[in-house]
């Protein structure tokens, strides 16, 4: 009878696609299913009785072994990502879960580890990312995809463009994409942050000066317009330009000429102007802080970039993108982010938008000790360390429930708005609320 049960278990384990192996308290492998053989390239006969690290060769064996963790805490480990090196020397991305094994008396006699080959999923993810990449801009948000669609036509037109969007939404990336897609792509792209240069210097910075124009002006100095000749000039934070300089910019746009300081003759300007503002220029026109005529001159084509809180579906893709980029830049071996850390990132509101997300990942790179960014590597305002300590979240369902509840609270329990914010259909949200037992307190 007992043998029949063992045979049945073996048949079941050998028929599933996930690798499964068990260990005793000495870390020696006691069972090894068929999928484990296929994924690792090691036969069961060779694996049984060996130390699991000598068979499994996982990137986390030394620093964050899932079995060690589960044997110490008694709690299961779910979906930890890592890579193994198979018998042919290939790095195979995998997802690992681990739990303790107990006998009839409840004594821990070892552990069980299941692992899934993520190679295909990883390939699909990279394909998807390629599909949603456009000139260094990554998004699958419908509003952003619409912008991607019209950018080539806008770039071709050579018209003046105004890009509006909160700070950190990627206005300069859009400006660069416009330049790269235009006929001016082989000529200079010059970016000027008008808000970062004092007004007294900005004029000479933009238009240059002639020798003798003022004390210390010993020789001619070309301005940014001269440097951008036949190319594109990107005037960021144009709302911060003083009224006096707004008049001069208006002349450049109207007459396509400008005068360097101290010059007696005008210089022609063959430059495409792309302006950007993190404030709503129309409101500034109404309040008298920005010239109406200049506003209409630069607002020929308007591109409005949505803030990151309105395109939360992009956060996982952007996070992976930053991890890979920083991994190369910082020479640090970090390959992934844990599901609960990612959930915490998605639930944050990002007043600083994509730049803020990038800074958070950069900070996590400094603190992260393993190969995966964990929730404790994130700032307190995002990880909600204190709240978590009291809430004792124990599963992905709990994390998802907390995340959805928080989003509902933010949107005053309006399901349609919440679904839009989370990038899902309202029916999907309703189904998730039902499954997770979330109901409106009213």
């Amino acid at each position, binding site marked *: 009878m007992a043998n029949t049960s063992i045979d049945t278990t073996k048949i079941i384990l050998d028929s599933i696609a996930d690798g499964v192996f068990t260990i005793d308290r000495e870390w020696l492998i006691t069972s090894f299913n068929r999928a484990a053989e296929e994924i*690792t390239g090691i036969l069961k006969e060779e694996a049984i009785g060996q130390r699991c690290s*000598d068979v499994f*060769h996982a990137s986390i064996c030394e620093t964050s072994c899932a079995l060690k963790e589960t044997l110490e805490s008694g709690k299961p480990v779910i979906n930890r990502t890592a890579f193994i090196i198979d*018998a042919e*020397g290939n790095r195979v991305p995998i997802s690992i879960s681990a739990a303790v094994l107990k006998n009839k008396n409840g004594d821990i006699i070892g552990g069980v580890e299941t692992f899934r080959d993520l190679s295909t999923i990883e390939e699909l993810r990279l394909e998807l990312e390629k599909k949603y990449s456009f000139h260094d801009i990554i998004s699958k948000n419908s509003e952003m995809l619409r912008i991607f669609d019209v950018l080539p036509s806008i770039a071709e037109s050579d018209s003046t463009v105004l890009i509006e969007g909160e700070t950190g939404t990627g206005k300069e990336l859009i400006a660069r994409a416009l330049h790269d897609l235009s006929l001016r792509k082989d000529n200079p792209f010059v970016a000027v942050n008008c808000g970062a240069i004092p007004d007294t210097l900005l004029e000479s910075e933009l238009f240059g000066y002639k020798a003798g124009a003022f004390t210390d002006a010993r020789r001619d100095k070309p301005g940014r317009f001269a440097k951008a000749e036949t190319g594109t000039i990107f005037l960021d934070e144009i709302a911060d330009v003083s009224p006096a300089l707004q008049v001069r910019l208006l002349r450049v746009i109207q007459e396509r000429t400008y005068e360097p300081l101290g010059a007696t003759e005008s210089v022609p300007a063959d430059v495409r102007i792309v302006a950007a503002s993190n404030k709503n220029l129309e409101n500034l026109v109404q309040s008298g802080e920005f010239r109406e005529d200049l506003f209409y001159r630069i607002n020929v084509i308007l591109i409005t970039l949505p803030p990151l809180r309105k395109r939360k579906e992009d956060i996982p893709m952007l996070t992976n993108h930053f991890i890979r980029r920083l991994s190369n830049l910082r020479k640090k*071996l970090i390959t992934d982010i844990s599901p609960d850390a990612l959930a915490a990132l998605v639930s944050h509101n990002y007043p600083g938008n994509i730049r803020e997300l990038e800074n958070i990942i950069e900070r996590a790179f400094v603190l992260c000790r393993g190969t995966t960014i964990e929730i404790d590597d994130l700032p307190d305002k995002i990880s909600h360390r204190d709240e978590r300590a009291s809430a004792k979240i124990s599963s992905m369902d709990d994390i998802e429930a907390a995340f959805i509840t928080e989003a509902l609270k933010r949107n005053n329990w309006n399901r349609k708005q919440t679904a839009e914010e989370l990038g899902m259909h309202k029916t999907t949200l309703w189904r998730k609320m039902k499954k997770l037992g979330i109901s409106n307190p009213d």
Partner: protein
Amino acid sequence: MKVAIPIWNGRVSPVMDTACRLLVVEFSDSVEVSREAWDIPQVNIPYRVSFFIDRGIDVLICGAISHQFERMLSASGIKTVPWFGGNVDEIVTAYADGSLQNNSYRLPGCGRRRRQGMGRCRGRRTELGRYKQFEEE
């Protein structure tokens, strides 16, 4: 001749790509003259290879290693002797007396013919000629 072995809990580290500590043993005419342990910087593979070059490593005996890492080491003139495991002191002794090819130090799955689609590790000859080509069964 400087021989390096990634170490973890007194054993050969299971994965060279993510190993944290390295034992460097210097031999002169098959006699150990010094040994030193280093922390391996947790950086990308090209920078790890630089770390090996800077320490003048001639031979690396290790557990599992990715093709990418092995090829870069090889291109840098460092001989790799992969797919070995066990107690570090025993491995050092075995290397010195020429008995490293003993099956007991090989990791499971190394050098055996397996079902179609499964791999096998490849033996190679070090300068000392102590690591002979594994024969397939």
